[in-house]
């Protein structure tokens, strides 16, 4: 029995892999959406922050014996802290200007990060082993699913849900959302808006680094891993609606599935199907699927 000419074993296997990729895209685009939604900054350095997160895990293990679980916490903290510096020293000056300067600044920062790591580590990538507790896998009948990949889905979607909940359903989130709309009012209420913005940027970057650690055992750690992904992640955020948290999560997972389907039927197009979708969506719904009209 085949589905459109493809055996079900192949189809389900690819879809499951697509779901895994999709959860990656979701957690990555989540950070971007948070930063854009709250700060109106287009953070082109997101891919670099992801890559640095993965490298922190790798260097941590190779040089300091920091294990995977510790890295999951450490990398976001380190990258977040560094990003605080970036925000305070550089990004802050650009808030009054056109969005595009923020994009260009973060693009430059991404180039710097990529270049530095490339210089020290080459582009062939370093291998990062799956942590012991997550080795092995289970036989699902239509394919063998490594335990680590299942963990990725759980961790990524778990974090996504937690962030969404925090922003949409808690007081902190409400404050954040208010600060985006009327920073002056919120400031008048005694809340330190600039600090809030700094922390938000750091949180977004931390999310990227978290995704980087998650990715390390799967994708191999290499300086180009961010720049390969960044425009796809941008596309996800744009399609989902640039300020919408839910939008980027749903679109991220959706894209993973669509890519998987494309890989089954027309593999060469799998890298560009997202762009085709983006063009179509922007024609029909200019603010994205879940976006609010500006």
């Amino acid at each position: 029995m085949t589905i459109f000419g493809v055996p079900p074993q192949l189809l389900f296997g690819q879809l499951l892999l697509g779901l895994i990729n999709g959860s990656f895209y979701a957690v990555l685009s989540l950070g971007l959406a948070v930063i854009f939604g709250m700060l109106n900054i287009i953070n082109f350095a997101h891919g670099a922050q992801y890559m640095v997160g993965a490298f922190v895990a790798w260097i941590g293990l190779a040089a300091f014996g920091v294990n995977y679980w510790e890295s999951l916490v450490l990398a976001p903290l380190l990258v977040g802290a560094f990003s605080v510096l970036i925000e305070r020293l550089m990004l802050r000056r650009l808030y009054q200007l056109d969005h595009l300067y923020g994009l260009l600044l973060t693009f430059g920062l991404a180039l710097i990060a990529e270049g530095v790591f490339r210089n020290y580590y080459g582009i062939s990538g370093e291998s990062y082993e799956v942590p012991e507790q997550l080795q092995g896998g289970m036989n699902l009948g239509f394919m063998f699913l490594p335990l680590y990949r299942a963990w990725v889905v759980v961790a990524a979607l778990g974090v996504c849900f937690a962030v969404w909940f925090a922003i949409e359903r808690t007081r902190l989130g409400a404050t954040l959302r208010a600060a985006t709309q009327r920073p002056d009012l919120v400031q008048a209420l005694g809340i330190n808006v600039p600090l809030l913005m700094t922390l938000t940027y750091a949180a977004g970057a931390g999310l990227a680094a978290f995704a980087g650690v998650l990715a390390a055992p799967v994708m191999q750690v290499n300086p180009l891993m961010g720049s390969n992904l960044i425009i796809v992640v941008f596309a996800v955020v744009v399609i989902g609606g640039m300020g919408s948290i839910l939008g980027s999560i749903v679109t991220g997972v959706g894209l993973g599935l669509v890519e998987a389907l494309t890989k089954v039927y027309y593999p060469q197009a799998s890298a560009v199907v997202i762009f085709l979708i983006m063009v179509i969506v922007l024609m029909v719904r200019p603010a994205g699927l879940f976006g609010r009209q500006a």
Partner: protein
Amino acid sequence: MFAALIVGGLVAPFLAYPTFLMKVLCFALFASAFNLLLGFVGLLSFGHAAFFAFGAYVCGYLCKNLGAPPEVGILAGTASASMLGTVFGLLAIRRSGIYFAMITLALAQLVYFLEVQLPFTGGEDGLQGIPRGRLFGLIDLSDNMVMYFFVLAIYLAGFWLIHRTIHSPFGQILKAIRENEPRAISLGYAVDRYKLLAFVLSATLTGLAGATKAIVFQLASLTDADWHMSGEVVLMTLLGGLGTVLGPSVGALTIVGLQDLLADKVGSWVTVITGAIFVVCVLLFRRGIVGELRALSFTRRSGA
């Protein structure tokens, strides 16, 4: 200013490698065309590499596989970039800001994909060994000096066209749109049509730069269509001076020069330096080299 350019252009090949200068000229034209859109209309396109590459591929294919003479190849490359620009423009022009940039990026990625898949582009290898040919069937372009003067002529022509456009009534309207679009609309201008026209013009000249580059280096490859190429041209424009006429060319000279000088010696540090220049420019140097020089000369003239 024109006279200075022409003289400089004529003298330059005796001071530096013609191949290097030709690369600078192609990118200067590319950046100037891009600046037309970004500096004068205020639209950031992240997909201009598609026009550059398309011009290069069409020209290369005609000259290499169909034996066309170089001027035909270049004209065809330019024309096809123009058509592609119209398509992109029609799809993108109604959006602005980041959405505009993203649509152009997405469309450029689609073009990249086509260029990988379609047989006539040679896929991953690109089109190699594009012949220099004989210009008008008479002038042999394989000599680097001869080729250089041809490229110089093309650059000067393109530059002149941009200059005229900016200082024309059309250019004034574009500036008005950039300054205050709602006002322009309320004054009755069909703003979208003007933006589209500017976009197509920009795409056309970019295609010209690409087609010329294909003949100079006898190569059209996927690197031309990569989005990093789009990023580089933004940098050249920004560094040289957004919204100035000469700025992008200065920016192109600086960036291409830096890359050539440093590539062998420092390898990956070129990326770092490029990134650092971006950062510095955006933070401190937004008017770019030419912009800053202009500002300096104004203060000198008016004040002290």
